């Protein structure tokens, strides 16, 4: 079930009513049922996978955290076994075919084996949420949850199950155990955030997506247009994923629940390192806590730190997809951060000499532009279907040295007259919203007003309804992160 359908609006209204009207235990049963209905809507069999993941992590955590003291080795063995089951399932669904393909290149007999396994939506997200909980119990940061119902609600929480934000049991479980009282401001704030997410997704991301898809779909374009498309894809993926996250967080907020933030104005960053502190924060937080720190983090010398960064980002690339271009994307991001780390002292010296706004602002602008271009370059590796297409696009762009930039022709990609103005206006609103967020001023304050709130809500919904990409005969784009 997708957030941007009438079906979901009806579903959510029903869930909200039950959530606020039912008593404690019934309320949690209601939410669990809603979670499973939401997840199983397109394919009921997937519920079994979700249930299995929940049962394994619940059982393992209870065992690890049992009152009878276990030896460290025993606890570690239980944790390892549970992780093997979780990641084994993830591997079978997501990486088996890639492994067989790679094997086929080495062992001739293994070539051409095809295993048609379904990739269940959201498997990477709920697997990470469940294993994160296991690690927390193992480290003693959280008590093993005794109530299966509450734990199952956490793993399957419907706003986050398909594309995050990846929840943390230690912050989520206490919330559902306490009575959530109806809070009109929270409800209004959540709905406002949801509506803004819809504009980001349907209007900004999907309209940009039609242009980007036309170029990546084989439309012949000039080098300058390719550069524009690559820069626009950076915006598309941001609005797509931030839009989804805002909708998910908004839905949770309307229910009086808090889930982790996923973005914090990432494109205002002036370095790749800073960008990754603000982009997909729930995933980077997971990797930092459960991979980077256990590897030694930055405590074991410069070389080891750089290797750890590269390892984390290579794994992050693999997490996104079972293909080499995702690993290249991850490694590029890692390399840029390693470079920034190695040149940090030189950069600091330079910055100390740049006193006064006349020098400092152009320097920051330059750094911002450079960061945006580098990030866009990595997104090119991410968006390309495979390494072949990546090489082809780079070849097209490098063609500018032979035949020049050529004209900028977004019309041939489907940019309609008037669409550019609309994208600029909505994009401007997005920049303003991010600027407010970066300064710690939340647009959520609107929720405590009456007339301004309803006017803004109507404006957002009408904008999404008129300018959004949806409905029969169009090419509504799935959320980019649904496939991860």
């Amino acid at each position: 079930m997708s957030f941007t359908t009438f079906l979901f609006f009806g579903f959510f209204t029903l869930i909200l009513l039950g959530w606020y009207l039912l008593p404690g235990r019934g309320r949690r049963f209601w939410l669990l049922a809603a979670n499973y209905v939401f997840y199983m809507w397109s394919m009921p069999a997937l519920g079994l996978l979700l249930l299995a993941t929940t049962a394994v992590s619940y059982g393992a955590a209870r065992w690890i955290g049992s009152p009878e003291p276990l030896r460290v080795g025993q606890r570690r063995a239980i944790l390892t076994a549970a992780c093997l089951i979780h990641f084994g399932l993830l591997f079978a669904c997501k990486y088996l075919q890639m492994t067989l393909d790679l094997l086929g290149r080495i062992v001739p007999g293994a070539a051409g084996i095809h295993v048609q396994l379904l990739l269940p939506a959201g498997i990477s997200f709920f697997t990470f949420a469940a294993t994160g909980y296991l690690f927390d119990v193992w480290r003693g940061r959280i008590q093993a949850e005794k109530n299966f119902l509450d734990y199952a609600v956490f793993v399957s929480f419907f706003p986050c199950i398909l594309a995050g934000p990846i929840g943390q049991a230690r912050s989520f479980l206490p919330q559902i155990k306490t009575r959530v009282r109806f809070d009109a401001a929270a409800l209004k704030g959540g709905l406002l955030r949801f509506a803004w997410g819809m504009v980001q997704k349907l209007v900004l991301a999907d309209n940009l997506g039609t242009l980007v898809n036309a170029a990546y779909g084989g439309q012949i374009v000039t080098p300058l247009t390719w550069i524009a498309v690559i820069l626009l894809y950076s915006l598309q993926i941001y609005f797509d994923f931030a839009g989804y996250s805002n909708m998910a967080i908004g839905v949770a907020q309307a229910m009086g629940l808090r889930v982790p933030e996923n973005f914090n104005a990432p494109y205002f960053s002036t370095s790749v390192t800073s960008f990754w502190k603000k982009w997909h924060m729930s995933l980077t937080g997971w990797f930092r806590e459960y991979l980077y720190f256990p590897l030694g983090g930055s405590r074991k010398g410069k070389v080891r730190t750089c290797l750890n960064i590269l390892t984390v980002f290579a794994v992050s690339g693999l997490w996104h997809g079972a293909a080499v271009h995702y690993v290249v994307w991850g490694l590029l991001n890692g390399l840029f951060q390693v470079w920034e780390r190695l040149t940090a002292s030189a950069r600091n010296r330079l910055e100390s000499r740049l006193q006064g706004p006349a020098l400092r602002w152009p320097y920051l602008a330059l750094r911002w532009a450079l960061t945006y271009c580098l990030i866009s370059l990595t997104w090119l590796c991410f968006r390309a279907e495979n390494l072949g297409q990546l090489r082809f696009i780079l070849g097209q762009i490098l063609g500018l040295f032979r035949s020049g930039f050529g004209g900028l022709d977004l019309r041939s990609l489907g940019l309609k007259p008037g669409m550019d103005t609309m994208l600029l206006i909505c994009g401007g609103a997005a920049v303003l919203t991010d600027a407010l967020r970066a300064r710690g001023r939340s647009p959520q304050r609107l929720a405590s007003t009456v007339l301004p709130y309803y006017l803004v809500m109507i404006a957002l919904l009408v904008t999404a309804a008129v300018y959004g990409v949806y409905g029969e005969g169009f090419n509504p784009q799935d959320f980019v992160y649904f496939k991860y």
Partner: protein
Amino acid sequence: MKIKKRRLLYELPVLVMALAGLAVLLFRLGCWLMPERTTYGAVWTSYLQEEENSVDVLFLGSSRVYCDVIPALIYEKTGVTSFVNAGPSQTASLTYYYLRQSLRTQHPKYVFVEASGLYFGVNEGHSKTNVCYMPASVNRLLAAAACEDGILELAIYPLQEFHYRIYEKANEEVPAWDGTMLCGYTPLDEAKAQTERTLRLPDVRPGNENYLHNLDYFRRIAALCRSEGIVCVFFVSPTMADYTDAQIERLLADLRALPGAAAEDWTDLIEEIGIDNAADWFDSLHLNRKGAEKFTVFLSDYLAELGLKPTSGADAALWLSRVNYLYELYEN
């Protein structure tokens, strides 16, 4: 940021108004973004511009009606005012709800219903057009509910289908024809010669699966006309030659059995009407302008035979301008 309960009570009416306003706004926007429709059926904008209770005869049905019946010509021949409120591939249920909605502004003396809809399926591919152009009303919703899945959603929220036109609206061309002058008629100029064989080639579509369902709606049409004191005439158009004799016989027998309704078979009158198979057809299902003129003359004579008298209050100047418009159109 907590909102006090008392303020919440004040806010409830604002919420209700905002929701209602949003619903109306989205619906109106959807209607505004729909392409203007002056021909090819479902011409409700033109229909609603007719002065109330000024139409003597109402024609309903599929494209076989809006391509073949010329109201301005009927007026010129008889002084009788008429309107073709048909729709593309209009199914029996849609015809019924079109009639119900039509009667809200007009009270004709005769309603002619083209009968090919009796053999239509629930979905003939044009439900969206037929429903979305209906005015906002209960009939619109009921018509949509009687169609295939998804149409009801579209009837409530037409923006879903038409929102992309926001970029085209500014540069939209004015329709070539004035719908208020044509009164539902769609002139087709091209001629495609037909032979007895191509005309008699049975259409693959007609089937019996929905026949009883459609017959029920035709029964409702007849009953509605009877209750309103309107004479209801079902007719088998000369262009229905693609139906088999058995199909037409069954259809006529069933329609004639409906209380208070007449059923006319004009399939065999192609020669009598004077339709030239070499020059008067647009395709094997529709007459072109010349063919439509001949059929309309025949219809006018039929209406005269019925003894139908023109409405005394009809706007003669308007109707004469419609006749002139038609001839100017032909000349151009």
